[in-house]
């Protein structure tokens, strides 16, 4: 049979609803695409509604050809052909706009809806947040309702019916979706190589520091990574997240230097801490394990300095497992380390040199020298600030003796310089320090504002030892996060001491934690769901033998079976609310039969009336009243509730 509906012109309601949903579906792409592309799409929509606002008339063919040419040119000119994602999405959005322009029949609406679903999926190529997913599901609910509307023969859109039907169908699809999501086999790598381009503007630690780079980073409240500890959660003062180790300095900049030896393991002295880190995209290779790392899982790299990384830059949220201990066994200092650890930058002033010599004093031990230096920072009027004054040619000298205002990197670098002058091998370590515990999720949130730099010195018998000169100046920094919002130009930094705040503030704070928790859960269970996590989940579910094609088969069969089951549940005959009139009538009949009246099955109410009056003439009045009422209610229009109740009570009172 030919489909009678497809050829029909669209009703205005369908046309408008389709256009609106398409615009809504493409809306978030405004942030992803060049404004020229978004503008062209909007221009198409505007053209349609300005010149052809009715569904029966659409843009003429010559215009479509011209616009197609314009679109292709725009795509070729604007899109970076090497980046498949941008190119494809640009093309798709422009096609959707053109379809909107020429939409006329119900057949066109099918095409538009399919394009709409496609546009919705491409949104996830750019962002994968919980909010966006919710938005996408909402719009696809709308598209499904539109599809249903497209199959109704009526002109008007019964919105309630459509939304209800679509909600029923989509909701019933959720279990199938969950099942397929869990069971569908995940590949470790992509099918073909991807070029996602570099997302610009990601903040994160870089592998060299200039004075000022960390303080700049510290002004960002963005999340750097989240950590979930297996058992032991280290105390705040021990939460050092080790990034890069900087050996080399030209006086102003500190860099890693070259040739790093790979290393397998460090030996733990204290108990092993296992944890899982979910990192935000950084476009760099570095990972930030808890200090000090013990070994790297497969796929990750570690070197003798205790730096960790992965071969590819981190372009999207990435989760990895870490294994650390607060203290590791000391190891002998290699010649190379000895050399690098005593390298002196240029521009050391005599004053600094003399000060370093004075620290050493009369042959004091290395530990005592370190103590003395820390005491100096602690006792002299040093100020911890995010906006230190600019330093000139001899930054260490100027900082130590003149400005005395600085951020962690100032303290760390000058401390390391002092140690090297005093013949103690020392190096700068950058990374993060601290992290807030999310009370709801139980995980730690480390932000860019927790970026930190500290020093390590090599001490006989203890090996490389962490020394944090910042702690000597501002011990609160180590225990608490910086309240970045509060700092003013050059003023000393205040700390978020977590004191009791008002009820509203507490509530807002809780909401903040809730959101953070949701985000982490979302990224852990949904966005980061991969082959390994799938296997471990199946293990927990007791289905460890599923893999590869068996998994796929289970997914397919399970999906269809579950769909059928849900539908069958929906089909299950619901117990119908019994008709109260019918029940009353039956009740009455039962009473008559108990009284000895034989009622042939074909007796109607009128006949029953006569029959009963004949049989029980002494009750004629009651029978007449009941039957009269019943007939009036049964065959009258819209029986009133109270009258039905009256009949019921009359039947109840009736006795023979």
């Amino acid at each position, binding site marked *: 049979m030919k489909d009678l509906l497809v050829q029909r012109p669209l009703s205005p309601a369908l046309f408008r609803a389709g256009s609106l949903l398409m615009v809504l579906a493409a809306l978030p792409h405004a942030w992803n695409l060049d404004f020229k592309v978004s503008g062209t799409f909007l221009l198409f929509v505007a053209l349609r509604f300005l010149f052809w606002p009715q569904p029966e008339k659409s843009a003429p063919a010559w215009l479509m050809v011209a616009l197609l040419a314009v679109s292709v040119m725009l795509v070729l000119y604007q899109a970076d052909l090497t980046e498949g994602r941008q190119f494809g999405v640009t093309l798709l959005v422009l096609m959707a706009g053109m379809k909107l322009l020429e939409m006329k029949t119900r057949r066109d609406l*099918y095409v538009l809806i399919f394009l709409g679903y496609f546009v919705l999926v491409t949104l996830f190529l750019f962002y*994968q947040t919980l909010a966006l997913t919710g938005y*996408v599901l909402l719009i696809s609910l709308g598209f499904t309702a539109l599809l249903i509307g497209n199959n109704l023969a*009526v002109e008007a859109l019964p919105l309630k019916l459509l939304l209800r039907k679509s909600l029923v169908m989509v909701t019933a699809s959720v279990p*199938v*979706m969950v099942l397929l*999501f869990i069971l569908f086999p995940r590949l470790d790598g*992509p099918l073909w190589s991807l070029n996602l381009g570099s997302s610009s503007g990601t903040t994160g630690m870089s592998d060299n520091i200039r004075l000022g780079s960390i303080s700049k980073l510290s002004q960002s409240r963005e999340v750097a990574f989240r950590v979930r500890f297996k058992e032991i959660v280290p105390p705040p003062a021990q939460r050092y997240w080790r990034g890069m180790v900087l050996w080399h300095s030209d006086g102003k900049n500190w860099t890693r230097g070259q040739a790093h030896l790979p290393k397998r393991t460090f030996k733990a002295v204290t108990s092993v801490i296992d944890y899982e880190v979910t990192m935000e995209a950084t476009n760099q290779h570095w990972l930030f394990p808890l200090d000090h790392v013990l070994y790297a899982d497969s796929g990750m790299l570690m070197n003798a300095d205790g730096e960790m990384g992965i071969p590819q830059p981190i372009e999207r949220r990435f989760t990895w497992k870490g294994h650390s201990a607060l203290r590791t066994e000391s190891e002998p200092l290699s010649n190379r380390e000895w050399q690098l650890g005593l390298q002196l930058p240029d521009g050391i002033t005599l004053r600094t040199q003399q000060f370093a010599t004075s620290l050493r004093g009369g042959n004091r031990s290395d530990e005592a020298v370190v103590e003395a230096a820390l005491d100096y920072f602690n006792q002299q009027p040093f100020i911890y600030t995010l906006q230190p004054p600019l330093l000139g040619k001899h930054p260490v000298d100027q900082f130590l003796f003149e400005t005395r205002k600085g951020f962690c990197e100032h303290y760390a670098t000058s401390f390391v310089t002092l140690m090297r002058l005093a013949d103690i091998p020392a190096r700068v370590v950058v990374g993060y320090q601290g992290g807030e515990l999310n009370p709801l999720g139980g995980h730690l949130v480390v932000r860019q504002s927790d970026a930190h730099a500290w020093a390590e010195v090599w001490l006989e018998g203890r090996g490389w030892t962490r020394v944090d000169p910042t702690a000597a100046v501002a011990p609160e920094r180590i225990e608490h996060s910086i309240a970045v919002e509060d700092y003013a130009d050059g003023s000393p930094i205040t700390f978020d001491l977590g004191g009791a705040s008002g009820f509203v503030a507490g509530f807002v704070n809780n909401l903040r934690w809730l959101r953070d928790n949701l985000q982490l859960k979302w990224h852990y269970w949904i966005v980061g769901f*991969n082959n390994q996590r799938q296997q471990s989940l199946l293990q927990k579910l007791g289905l460890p033998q599923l893999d590869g094609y068996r998994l796929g088969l289970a997914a397919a069969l399970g*999906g269809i079976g579950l769909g059928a089951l849900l539908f069958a549940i929906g089909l299950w005959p619901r117990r119908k609310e019994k008709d109260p009139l019918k029940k009353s009538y039956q009740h009455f009949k039962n009473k008559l039969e108990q009284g000895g009246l034989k009622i042939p099955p074909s007796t109607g109410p009128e006949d029953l009336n006569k029959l009963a009056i004949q049989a029980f003439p002494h009750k004629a009045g009651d029978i007449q009243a009941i039957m009269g009422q019943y007939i009036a209610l049964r065959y009258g229009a819209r029986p009133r509730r109270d009258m039905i109740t009256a009949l019921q009570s009359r039947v109840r009172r009736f006795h023979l």
Partner: protein
Amino acid sequence: MRIRFYDRWPCLEIHQAVGLASNRTLGTGQSGCRLTPGKGFMRQRLIQFLRVVRPEGGESTIGGRKIYILPTRYGLVFGVLLITLLVASINYANNPAFILTFLLTGVFIQAIFHTWRNLLDLHLHWQQADPVFAGETTFFHFQLHDPKGRAHYTIQLGFNEQDTVVAPCVDEHRKIVKIPFLSRQRGRLNPGRLTLETRFPLGLLRAWCYLETEAEAIIWPRPMEGQLEQTEPADEGSREGDRGVGTDDFTGYRGYRPGDSLAQVSWKALAGEKGLLVKQFGGDRVSQLWLDFDALSDHGTEQRLSILAHTVQTLSSQPVHYGLRLGDLEIAPGDGDSHRLQCLEALALYGESS
């Protein structure tokens, strides 16, 4: 050719064409339900294996096992869309994209059941068919309802290779659906297999089922203009004068009886609260004539029937009483719509048993 006119007036010539209700091009083939022998054999064998809903007690109920379902063109396109989305999700290892893909997969699975259910439990009851002239479209009236009161939307009904209609069945009220059939031949028309199909809700799948019905329609002979010669005057004139029934002269009032034409009700009398009265007309002074099948001896049977049908149709709009002689059958002269229908039906069924 000989047609006997019994007439008081000397001549009545009928030569204006009778306007037919339909302007369809008239086919020449067999009735639509029968299969042409060329492509027919295999199909006929196949159709024997089809599951067909058969009526029970005049009512056909569509059971779940009688329903066929297959994806439509859009369903196939949707499948391609799903595969594309899946490949993209795998390639970009994009889990939210997986979610949407799998959700849409679930929606497709749901659509299978919902489309199937949109036909399930429908009850179809044949009522009547409009009699028409051969070559016109007759409409078979079917009653569509679901005793459980579940709503069914966008159901397309049609006979084999005929035009279709779309109807919803949204509440427990019995809905009358008129299904067209282009008639080709006079006689009893058995429309054959009825197909019910639906693509609701998503249009991605098409569910359909075949129904056997007890429906039949009377198809009158295709009217054909023919020359009718007046021969002898009537040997049975009107003798009853001004009494009785006719259409000519007003003779008086009588009480309303069910079945009287509303055109003859005296509304003025009703307004004057005199009760429901019917105006009576004396009509016996009209011409009275016989249409005789045997008189048209130099035509073929079908042609004769066609000419007679045409004549009946023409005479029915004129102040004439006409009778029909059709072999053994004789219909006494009369007029009015039921008389016309009786004559036309007799012409339609000429030569058929029963």
